[in-house]
């Protein structure tokens, strides 16, 4: 299974929607950098992400979440990881696809 990384806000480009169209059930989606805006409640994309969470694991890089001061708005069920956890995820999944 693939680990997909998203590093741009889904409100800025369509990397996340393209990724979700391609990603197989059981794969992982990791939000990093400005991508963490995709892991928040109360945005245009929240419902899409919550739906994806039924079939895929969704993670967000905690240092990037905190750097943007949005830690209180993370969707329930999104797993926060630090850099060490990021490394672990890349080993747990078979490959890493960076949606740049």
């Amino acid at each position, binding site marked *: 299974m693939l680990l997909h990384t998203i*590093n741009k806000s889904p409100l800025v480009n369509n990397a996340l929607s393209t990724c979700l169209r391609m990603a197989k059930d059981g794969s992982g989606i990791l939000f*990093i*950098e*400005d991508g963490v805006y995709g892991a928040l409640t109360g945005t245009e994309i929240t419902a899409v992400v919550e739906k994806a969470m039924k079939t895929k694991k969704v993670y967000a890089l905690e*240092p*990037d979440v905190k750097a943007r001061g949005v830690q209180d708005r993370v969707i329930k069920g999104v797993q926060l990881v*630090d*850099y*060490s956890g*990021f*490394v*672990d995820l*890349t*080993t747990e999944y078979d*490959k*890493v696809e*960076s949606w*740049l």
Partner: protein
Amino acid sequence: MKFGICINEGPYTHQASDTAYQFTKAALEKGHEIFRVFFYHDGVNNGTRLTTPPQDERHIVNRWTELAEKHSLDLVVCVAAAQRRGIVDADEQKRQGKDANNLAPGFRISGLGQLIEAGIQSDRLVVFGD
């Protein structure tokens, strides 16, 4: 596990280089091997030793050099991308007849084959970019 890292963006403009550094550092701390870090496209700008940020700011270039020294990392700058952006080592300076060189310690200039090799030899190739 063996990792290859590819960085496609320069320092201070995008977060990519910072994320790649933190990832690489965390992987090394966990005992993983970094087969190679390949700097491609604007990423080659991470390899100029003339970079001089304010003293109280992180020095992205020196940070790579120090990590490379500590862990014997192979930091490779793509030659074609480097030539376009004025990143030059002593050999390239001579070959191109330039009056200076600026490649930072710990980096070396080589070809795209090094990225392909990193992809083949590593268990995971992780790409950081914009």
